[in-house]
């Protein structure tokens, strides 16, 4: 099997060091008609972390189906993982579904089996399907009952009208059936649409041997789009509102560009200073090919005008706070946080895996760190001008 694998890069371990160099993969392989494998070999470690991600796109009418598939997969393997104390997760990301398992290297074969189970054909009997769908549906409905959830939904639907929320909507979830979830699985869970990231005291051969049987849908023919049907209307939640809520959103570059993260950090800091009498915050939402900078807040009557004016003027305020020192400090803070996130095997595969899924580049996480080093006050101001030019869209909820 190893001979058939195309070794894209390998045996770079000797030159590897800690710090950001630890984000440089030791081996990158593309298995024939199989997944791309990115390996971080750490001979001294005792814990192994494995991540398989499946790249997929949902059609609007099936929004939330991948989330149901993810919930079902997790329900299926959780107890199996617990028998060896391994931790298994499944996450719906903007690029697909990511499955991870982390545990002692001595249980490597068993953990690889768990991972194969997560991506194998779902056995969705009626009870299992309803349980998985209810888990997602409950979250969506909880969100729709809160002012921040409704405000986010309204901003989202304006700024990316063609993009569905990852959890879907109440309406789209009601359209999902066991058959539609299985269809989604069959057209997406194919080895050639998968990325595998592994970290621990493992080498290439055992990984290939353990994961060679990933998923049996390779014979299902070429990927097909789901049947085209009308997009369900977005949820229009009517939460009980006591304060005035206001938000603005802007398109903020692509996932490989760290300027958005630096800008969000600086804008958030600006907002925290002098925000008396109201509550406000800055978030960065990630989509598959873009990011959204969202600024939202809430205030009671007498402070509502001040809150709204502050949000409307926040980017100008942030621009005035951009100095070489502030930009460098914010970039250094984000850089450190990313390194800290990757300090455990599971943190490392998650960081590398997300950047791999977003950019298609195994060194995407390392490249991102290096781009952070290039963020300057001037480049941040240029980026800010682009962001301002993209919007904003705004939404408001009144008592």
């Amino acid at each position, binding site marked *: 099997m190893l001979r058939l694998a195309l070794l894209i890069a390998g045996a770079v371990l000797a030159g*590897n*060091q*800690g*710090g*950001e160099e*630890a*984000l440089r993969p030791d081996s990158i392989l593309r298995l024939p008609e199989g997944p791309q494998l990115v390996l*971080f070999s*750490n001979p*001294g*470690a*005792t*814990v192994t972390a494995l991540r398989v991600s499946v790249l997929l796109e949902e059609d609007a009418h099936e929004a939330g189906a991948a989330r149901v598939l993810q919930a079902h997969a997790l329900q299926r393997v959780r*107890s199996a993982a*617990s*028998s*060896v*104390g*391994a*931790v298994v997760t499944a996450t719906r990301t903007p690029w697909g579904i990511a499955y991870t398992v*982390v*545990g*002692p290297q001595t*249980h490597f074969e068993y953990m690889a089996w768990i991972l194969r189970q997560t991506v194998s054909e779902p056995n969705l009997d009626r009870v299992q399907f309803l349980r998985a769908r209810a888990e997602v549906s409950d979250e969506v409905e909880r969100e729709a009952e809160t002012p921040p959830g409704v405000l986010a939904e309204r901003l989202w639907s304006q700024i990316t009208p063609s993009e569905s929320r990852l959890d879907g909507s109440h309406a789209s979830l009601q359209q999902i059936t066991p058959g539609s979830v299985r269809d989604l699985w069959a057209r997406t869970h194919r080895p050639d649409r998968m990325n595998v990231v592994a970290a621990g*005291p493992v080498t290439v051969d055992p990984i290939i041997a353990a994961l060679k049987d990933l998923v049996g849908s390779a014979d299902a023919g070429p990927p097909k789009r789901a049947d085209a049907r009308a997009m369900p209307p977005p949820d229009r939640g009517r939460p009980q509102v006591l304060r005035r809520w206001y938000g603005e959103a802007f398109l903020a570059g692509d996932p490989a560009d760290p300027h958005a993260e630096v800008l969000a950090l600086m804008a958030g800091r600006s907002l925290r200073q002098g925000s008396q009498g109201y509550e406000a915050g800055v978030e960065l939402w990630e989509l598959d090919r873009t990011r959204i900078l969202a600024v939202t807040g809430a205030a009671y009557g007498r402070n509502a005008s001040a809150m709204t004016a502050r949000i409307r003027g926040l980017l100008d305020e942030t621009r005035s706070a951009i100095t070489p020192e502030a930009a460098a*400090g*914010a970039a*250094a*803070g984000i*850089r*450190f946080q990313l*390194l*800290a996130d*990757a*300090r*455990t*095997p599971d943190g*490392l595969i998650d960081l590398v895996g997300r950047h791999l899924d977003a950019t298609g580049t195994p060194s995407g996480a390392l490249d991102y760190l290096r781009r952070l080093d290039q963020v300057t006050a001037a480049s941040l101001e240029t980026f800010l001008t682009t962001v301002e030019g993209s919007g904003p869209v705004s939404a408001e909820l009144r008592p």
Partner: protein
Amino acid sequence: MKRFVLSTLGLTAMVVSVPGPLVGQEVDSAAVEPTPEPAPDTAVWIAVAPRPRGTVVATTVTFPVGSDHDPTGRGGTAWLVGRTLEGMAQEALGEAAAASVQVLRGRVYATLLAPPTTWESDFQTFATVLMRRELAAGHFEAERSRLVGRLTFEAGAPVREFEVEAARLYASGEQDWARPPEGDLESLPAVTLDDLTQFRRRLLNADDVAVAVVGPVDPDAAVGVTSAIRDGRRRASASSSAERGASAVAWTTGDRLALPRDITNTSLAFAYPLPAGHDRTAAEFLAHVLQEKLNPVPPDPGVYRAETQVMDAPTGPLLVIEVAVFPEVGNRWEQQIATAIRETAGGDPYEDVFFPWQQRRFRSAAMQRDATPEGLSRRLTNDLLRGGSARDVDAEIRTLTAEGLVTLAATLGQPRVLFFGPDLGADRDP
């Protein structure tokens, strides 16, 4: 100088004991205290676990003192020292490193996470703030104000009272240890910046400390860098009361204290003395086994939480079990905990199946805790302060046996029990 290398978690950990003051360290004459004689048993323990592929370096400096050394009537002093130092350290380090200082009853843990490229200078900054820089009045006042606000909000909460009463139970008469680490609304207003300064000067003793470094570092260089924690001052050892009692048996007679309260849940605290000479890893395994017994799947609907731990109490180490349950099942749960201990001591008829299962899960949890660099560095400093050597936890877990588990459970001392909640007479368990 004592120096040896041992294997920890499959990695090489170098442990160095540095007795006496280091030569050539910067001395802040203003901070030097007249000390008649250096304590003969003082030592700086330094452990280094190199992780060549690590993305950050974690360094934990652990002092074997804590709120148990607060001055009388000044409860919260140690806590405020920790919070003040944390704020000052973070301010000095900037955004590209993270500092934390946590104060418990018998410990102060100061932890630095830093990128490998700046780790050495970051540690110098961290050590300078920790040991030498004048405490900032602004940070102190802000932290005290925050703490008073929180305690005011929590005043009268049953959970706070239970924590205080449970600590008294575990302290077995050592009242200094039993006080809440955060102090209380009476003591905090009396604490002054001078109290904090005196506490740090007397008790955050660079001659009685354990340091552990985990990350992509050269072991020799790391020992050199962390020696900066020494500041030239020599003071008498002020080890925690928990340290003094570490090898003792906490008590020989059990007890039961019922504190009836008209509240909406019942809290129970069970404390079992661990036998003298017990193995720490085996005791943690026993706690893990009991934790799983008390948290079955699916969960008992009458339970809010059930937690077990091995605790270094002042008169000796304890196996502690705390649960919060519906009042209707409080009495049943008191019996259930005692039964869980008795059954474990009697041996499991299905041990061929369950012992390996429990051992696997315990090992996995320990490996994953130690995979976090700050988790490992903290554990290493505790090992050093407790016994002067770092455990190879993985190897020790592999040697655990079902017989050893039974023996340890059977040799636990008499429990002291706190029942805190409504007195419903007999349970009305549905």
